[in-house]
């Protein structure tokens, strides 16, 4: 049992980061889910793996370039697709935006295939030689990097959203989209910031995840479903919601895989998701508060 703790923490961390990116975009666009987020992660991750095997660049530029790739993809999506969608369709959950983000998912998946091919690329683990142990629990340097990075990013996100001007702008826009429009808040800026942040976080997620088992363009769907379910399991209302949901989901998935088999994990995640959607879609733990419109 104790050997499952680290896999749960590591898997949970990866999902938590993607889930956080979802939340940022959700807030900044008044209800749009960028389904292509998983693909930004994959672009960065595969890019990092590709660069480290095919070039002699050291780690820092590799990471920088990979994050650049994912952020550019995110901003391009915002400018070219999501921005126009919010202007054309008043209701964020309408058919147009949903289909638009699915099209984005497909587009970036095909781009990744074009750039890097279909086969999974695997990266070099960070902090390769290090080994740590805490009682009976053992973890490698890379696993520790993932867990610590996630903690740091969540902390940074929290500080940004609570205390900085731009962060508060984003929260204001997210809490009441229509009021923000009336009040003349700079929604455009909030959106651009959110996509910038989401692109970077997703990119970092990919870079951290690619040494684990490799990434291929088709794995974006798994990022999407896990990130989405985690967001509503934990609650999209608070910054900590994605993290809580992600770790819970990881725990459930890994326990079920270990004791019942991987197939049951997929069935269970489906059932869990449908249950959450039907019963408490505002989120189990930190629900989104509705304000009078």
């Amino acid at each position, binding site marked *: 049992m104790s050997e499952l703790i680290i896999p749960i923490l590591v898997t949970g961390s990866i999902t938590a980061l993607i889930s956080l990116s979802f939340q940022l975009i959700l807030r900044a666009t008044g209800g749009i889910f960028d389904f292509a987020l998983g693909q930004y992660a994959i672009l960065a991750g595969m890019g990092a793996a590709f660069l480290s095997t095919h070039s002699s660049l050291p780690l820092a530029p590799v990471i920088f370039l990979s994050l650049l790739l994912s952020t550019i993809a995110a901003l391009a999506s915002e400018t070219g697709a999501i921005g126009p969608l919010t202007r054309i369709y008043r209701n964020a959950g309408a058919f147009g935006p949903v289909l638009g983000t699915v099209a984005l998912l497909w587009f970036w998946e095909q781009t990744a295939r074009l750039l890097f091919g*279909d086969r999974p690329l695997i990266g070099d683990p960070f902090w390769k030689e290090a080994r740590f142990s805490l009682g009976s629990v*053992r973890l490698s340097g890379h696993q520790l990097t993932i867990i610590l990075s996630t903690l740091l990013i969540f902390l940074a996100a929290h500080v940004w959203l609570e205390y900085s001007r731009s962060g508060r702008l984003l929260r204001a826009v997210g809490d009441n989209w229509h009021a923000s429009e009336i009040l003349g808040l700079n929604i455009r800026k909030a959106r651009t910031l959110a996509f910038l942040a989401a692109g970077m976080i997703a990119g970092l997620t990919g870079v951290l995840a690619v040494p684990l*088992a490799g990434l291929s363009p088709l794995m974006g769907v798994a990022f999407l479903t896990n990130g989405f379910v985690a967001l509503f399991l934990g609650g999209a209302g608070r910054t900590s919601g994605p993290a809580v949901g992600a770790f819970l989901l990881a725990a459930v998935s890994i326990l079920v895989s*270990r004791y019942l088999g991987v197939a049951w994990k997929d069935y269970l995640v489906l059932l869990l998701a449908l249950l959450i959607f039907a019963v408490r879609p505002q989120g189990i733990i930190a629900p989104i508060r509705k304000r009078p419109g």
Partner: protein
Amino acid sequence: MKKSLFCSVVFALLIPNCLMAAEPIRLGILYDASGGASDYSRYNLMNAGLAVDEINAAGGVLGRPIELLKEDDGNDPNVSPLRTRTLVKRGCVGLILGSGSASVLQARVVAEEEKVPAFATTLNDKVSQPPNNSYTFQTNNSATQQLNVLVSGIKSRVNRIAIFTDTSPTGAGLAALYKKALENAGVEVVATEAVDVGATDATAQVARLRDKWKVKAVLISGQAPQEQALFVRTVLEMGWKVPLFQDVTAVSPSYRKLLGPKALEQLYYLEPIHPDNALAQKWIRKFREKYPNEPVLTTMGNVWNAVYLFKRAVEVVKGTDGPALKGAIENICGMKSHFGPPASTVCCSKDNHLCADPNGVFIAQFKDGRSVPAPK
């Protein structure tokens, strides 16, 4: 008639020019250029091309050159039947099904409908079995054949063993398969240890096998090379000098890169290429000449067998009629094989479309930078 007479007269002097004039015999290959099977599929294409070149340089078949036509199905079984039919439409009288196994299963239905003999290079067990197999011949060792060789190799060396795998359904399934086969052969399977797909640490599993179960041999299996490589590297790091058995995964160049040279020496693995098999060494040499920057994938010997089977059948039939070719292939037995120990042959029959020699793979070790048969 006149043309071929002319050609045979000036055979020695003007071989290539001669063949240019004759109507080519078209052989089609279905392969995957970019999809999930492209890792090995493009090697199928490369080796088929080399085999065809070799045959053409030696005068072709019935004085006619073989023309290799290719179609890419992207490993998408929805598209494979279409591509296969296109090959037939373009005039192919023989097919090499070199894409992923799902694609091959779809494509062989077309081969049967169009009555064109097809050679499957996959190791999938079902490919050479009914239904839909009447025109398909498997030139690679099937998964079951390979399993049998591995199990008997283990049995002749140890009587208790542990299995290492991953927790994926494929990995778990493989482990169960191995366990059953080993126990049937009288080898005790003491334990099965597994890591999750994507795991980065296998120390606990190795420690348990070494200290708790105290096994003297481990069989490595799983759905992908990464976890298997992880296990081997961990065993090496922990300094445990135990023989590790593995299937044909171990000959893959990408897998070997994951391991590093030191780790390879502890492996006993299935290897199709024997140093004393002259045909095998010849094709490897030709491959290296033409593709010096590509690693050699030693499982590709079966593609050469496929091309030569086709050639032999055309020569026997003296034509390209589908049903006649099929009948001819079913009567070919004893043709020398491009892989396996020196005595390996290719043998097909009406009831057995699995044409690979059951001993085409053998247990090997990695010594002095190459695979050599492991001592008994």
